[in-house]
């Protein structure tokens, strides 16, 4: 299938990041893969309009996150993370904490920490100002810190029990 070379470059470069961003929020690799594919397909439909924009990677990411959230809302049963390789408790807790974050904080974390977008670019993708992105990141950081600290304390308790 012939496709615009610039789209192909973006797809090959960004697909893993987009898929992982969705996985971070959903914990479901299959859903993450589907949402990322759907987001790229939507980008391809609009490629003439958005292809030359510097924020196109971020656009695909937030679109994929929205698709995934919509899918998750339709699911009545909690999806267990069985298909991923065995994780340690800390990572599970981190993903759990991520899932509980408000949507905008999830987007800010995915764009900034996972896709490595500077705050200014994340703000452009999220259509808000830099200050708002910083606020989202700061609040998300506090929540994720708490999750990591709790895990540390639990982990230390467990290791003491083993000793």
């Amino acid at each position, binding site marked *: *299938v012939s496709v615009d070379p610039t789209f*192909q470059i973006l797809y090959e470069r960004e697909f893993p990041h987009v898929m992982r961003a969705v*996985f971070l929020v959903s914990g479901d690799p299959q859903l993450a893969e589907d949402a990322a*594919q759907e987001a790229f*397909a939507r980008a391809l439909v609009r490629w003439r309009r958005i292809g030359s924009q510097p924020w196109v990677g971020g656009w695909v990411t937030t679109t994929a996150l929205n698709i995934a959230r919509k899918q998750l809302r339709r699911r009545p049963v909690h999806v267990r993370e069985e298909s991923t390789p065995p994780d340690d408790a800390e990572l599970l807790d981190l993903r759990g904490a991520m899932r509980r974050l408000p949507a905008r904080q999830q987007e800010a974390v995915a764009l900034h920490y996972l896709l490595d977008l500077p705050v200014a670019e994340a703000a452009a993708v999220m259509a808000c100002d830099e200050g708002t992105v910083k606020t989202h990141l700061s609040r998300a950081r506090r929540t994720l810190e708490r999750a990591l600290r709790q895990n540390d304390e639990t982990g230390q308790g467990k290791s003491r029990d083993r000793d």
Partner: protein
Amino acid sequence: VTDDLLKERVRRAVAGATPTPDLDAVVRRSQTLRRRRVGAAIAVTIALLLGFAVPLSMLTGLRGDRAPVPPGTPGPSPSAEPTPSPSPAPVVIAPPSWIVQPNPLPALISPQIPFAAGTYDFPRPPLVACGTQPALEHLPADAVFVWIYRYSPPDADSADTAQHPPWPDRFSLDLPHRHGDRECAAGTGDVRDYRFWAVDHTVQVLVGIGPDASDRLLRELEDVVSSYEA
């Protein structure tokens, strides 16, 4: 927890996910989306067209296909007798070769000008001030022109209003008149100025006659003015 540490943990949290890119699937999916978008656009267009066309056709239905009303069928009006419509504005009857312009200066409040008529294509609309002047200046040698002023109440300069003759049953060029040497008719050839009294207003008839105007035209002019109901 530093920013870098958090970044590292976040990345570790997703490192287990192994993406399997499939560009062909993305392209196929985009083609489906495109088809859906086109379909949706067509559906919206049809809906919009129907939105206009259906109400219009309903209006058309209201208008047409009514059964003809048999003669003698009483109308829907609650009044027992039909109310006569208001009488039309005064008009004149002129031969087809004449040009008649009713109410040539609608903006003029007083005097009113019920009509102007001539056997040539006189300048229209005439000037607001001295409306007859251009028409009279362009009067061909074999043509005639007539212009009526209606003063209601009687014009200020008609102190001798009561002395004007009453509006005649039939107008004749031989009736008493002055030569048009007054304002708006001066220097324009054979111009006659007739004044009449009619119930509560005065009527001024300005007539321009070309030097070669035929007797037939003069008779026609008399007929035209006579047909005016003062």
